[in-house]
């Protein structure tokens, strides 16, 4: 238990008695093994100190101690909710570095898989966020839809969570007519479901009261902390790697980058819901214009990484995922640095949470969409 109340004497003001509380590492609203040491004054949060590292699995060290091919499964285990962008990023980096050309059909399949994964991730977030706000039921509706995505991805990739689907120079399997029809069916279903979510959540007065003007991230603050993804776009900055530096096949598709206006939890919610619709648009276009051809480029059996450095960024479900490679001419990276978006987004909570009500702090934490194993790596 330890000391519940500790006093801190400030220079001029009165003595503030803080009630210290541990949120996590085992706690219903930290979604993993995040620990927050919170100093409370009544219901008000005076200070937040995140403690991370409980899920550290030495992914970066593993990358520099084995041939680069053997690291592929690790990329599927960085972010349990949305792993394909990580894999996409890692492989694109290697392919760019070694000069392997990926067939256009493979890029299209990659885009479809990644966007499906993004929808699954946002659905998971939506349910978990509402659970943080105390609504029990929506998570089951979200999981119901997510289940459909996972079924499709399972059919396609062979796994439900840790999809190791992409291969050097292409993908593991083709999207045949059966899979395409299933995806189309899912799109029809999902488009109808948004009205359910809007009725259940968006127009709910308690939900609006709990999220409107709560946890406002100003554009300046978002820039200072290096926030990316829906957190940044919720603050009104239309930065999306898929638009700013189009990679893979994203140049071929037209889609919007939704942004918020106030930067509060409600805006971040709206941005994510709109992003799901945009992902459906991208999938639809990709299915329509899918080029014929190979799904995997012929690749030599052993590939050494030429000496040099290179970085590659993709838009993950939570923000910009960057892999930075330093190679020394062997088949093992000298160093592989992973930039996880959640790490930057988590740091916002320290400044953002000060002076908030405890419940608002939990809501704000939920709206950042943190996946802790991705931070810990």
């Amino acid at each position: 238990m330890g000391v519940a109340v500790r006093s801190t004497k400030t220079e001029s003001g009165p003595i503030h008695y803080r009630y210290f509380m541990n949120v996590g590492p085992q706690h219903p609203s930290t979604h993993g093994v995040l620990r927050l040491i919170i100093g409370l004054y009544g219901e008000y949060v005076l200070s937040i100190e995140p403690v991370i590292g409980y899920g550290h699995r030495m992914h970066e060290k593993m990358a520099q101690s084995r041939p680069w091919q053997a690291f592929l499964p690790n990329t599927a285990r960085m972010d349990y909710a949305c792993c394909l962008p990580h894999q996409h990023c890692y492989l694109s980096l290697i392919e760019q570095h070694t000069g392997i050309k990926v067939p256009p059909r493979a890029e299209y399949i990659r885009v479809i898989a990644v966007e499906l994964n993004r929808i699954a991730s946002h659905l998971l977030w939506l349910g978990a966020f509402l659970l943080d706000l105390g609504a029990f039921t929506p998570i089951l509706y979200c999981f119901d839809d997510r289940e459909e995505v996972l079924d499709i991805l399972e059919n396609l990739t062979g796994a439900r969570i840790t999809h190791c689907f992409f291969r050097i120079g292409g993908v593991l399997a083709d999207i045949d007519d059966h899979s395409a029809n299933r995806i189309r069916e899912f799109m029809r279903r999902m488009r109808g479901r948004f009205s359910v979510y809007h009725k259940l959540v968006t127009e709910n007065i308690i939900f609006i009261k709990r999220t409107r003007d709560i946890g406002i991230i100003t554009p300046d603050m978002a820039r200072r902390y290096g926030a990316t993804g829906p957190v940044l776009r919720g603050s009104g900055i239309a930065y999306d790697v898929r638009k700013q530096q189009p990679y893979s096949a994203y140049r071929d598709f037209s889609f919007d980058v939704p942004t918020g206006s106030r930067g509060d939890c409600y805006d971040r919610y709206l941005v994510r819901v709109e992003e799901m619709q945009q992902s459906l648009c991208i999938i639809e276009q990709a299915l329509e214009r899918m080029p014929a051809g190979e799904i995997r480029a012929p690749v030599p059996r052993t590939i050494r990484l030429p000496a040099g450095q290179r970085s590659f960024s993709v838009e993950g479900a939570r923000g910009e995922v960057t892999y930075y490679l330093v190679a020394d001419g062997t088949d093992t990276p000298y160093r592989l640095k992973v930039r996880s978006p959640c790490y930057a987004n988590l740091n916002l909570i320290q400044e953002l949470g000060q002076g908030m009500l405890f419940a608002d702090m939990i809501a704000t934490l939920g709206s950042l969409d943190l996946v802790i194993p991705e931070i810990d790596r």
Partner: protein
Amino acid sequence: MDTIISITSAFTSVALAAAVIVGFVFVNATALGYIERKLCGRFQRRIGPMEVGWHGILQMPVDGIKLIAKQLIVPSHVAGPLFYVAPVLAFAPAALPFLVMPFAPRIQVLAMEAGLVFVLAVISFNTFAVFLAGWSSNNNYSMIGALRAVAQNISYEIPILLSLLTVVFLTGSFNLSRIVQVQESLWFVLRHPGAILAFLVFFIAAIAETNRAPFDLPEAESELTAGFHTEYSGIAFGMFMIAEYTYLFVNCCLATAVFFGGWWGPTLPFGQYSSCIWFFIKAYTLVFIVIWCRWTFPRVRFDQLMNLSWKYLIPIALGNLLLTALCTKL
């Protein structure tokens, strides 16, 4: 000899009443637990418990046996006797309101003149138990949950009292069976606009008073893990749950008796006894609405909860009370 017989018979009737009421509390909590789990399943596109018994109907008794059989884990840092007293204190008074509840003309243990006051007094006792539980647990989550519970219950007792007083003004009696009898021709909620408003205030306040979602802040699991009963396990936790369900049902019974005409309904055979069916149908309908709210809405924030009571419900209830009083005088 006559005295002995009368004492014995009085004792027997008291013991019988106590046994029936305690039995009813357990059966009712079990039934409500089952109904809630089934309904929650339906709201969430699931089917709920199905394994134990026909459509899982034995799930709750089995869970109850599990809770009783479970080891009571008592953390070393809790404050001794108070920790053990709290669940008993939560559970024991929960049965008392049924003593004066008029289920049917002949099914009422005690036609107390101040029945309504008695029920409200007993319901307030729950706050005491919850605070004791949170305080003696010596746990930060529990403490905050307990503080929230006290602030919440005190705030919401006022609108409950004010809204019930509206009906007391209309009938001129605190006696629950008389309040029901007056409604023979028409329920209060249909008869008087003041009573409709009073019912709405009462219903919202009653949900908050019983710590049910969307006002379940003392046990808000996304913030306080399990709130005031974080440190309780086994049947100690079970007693808090039984108390919660019982208080929920008491509030619905109160609303039925005061606003919805209690046992009145189309005549049934053995009217003196079987009309309690109407009472239960009405009460369980209200319970259904409470459960529906719970599984639909997100939780409100603490200051919003306080504002709702002090800025809206209390002024509305007070204004309504004054207007009703004025109307009855005219």
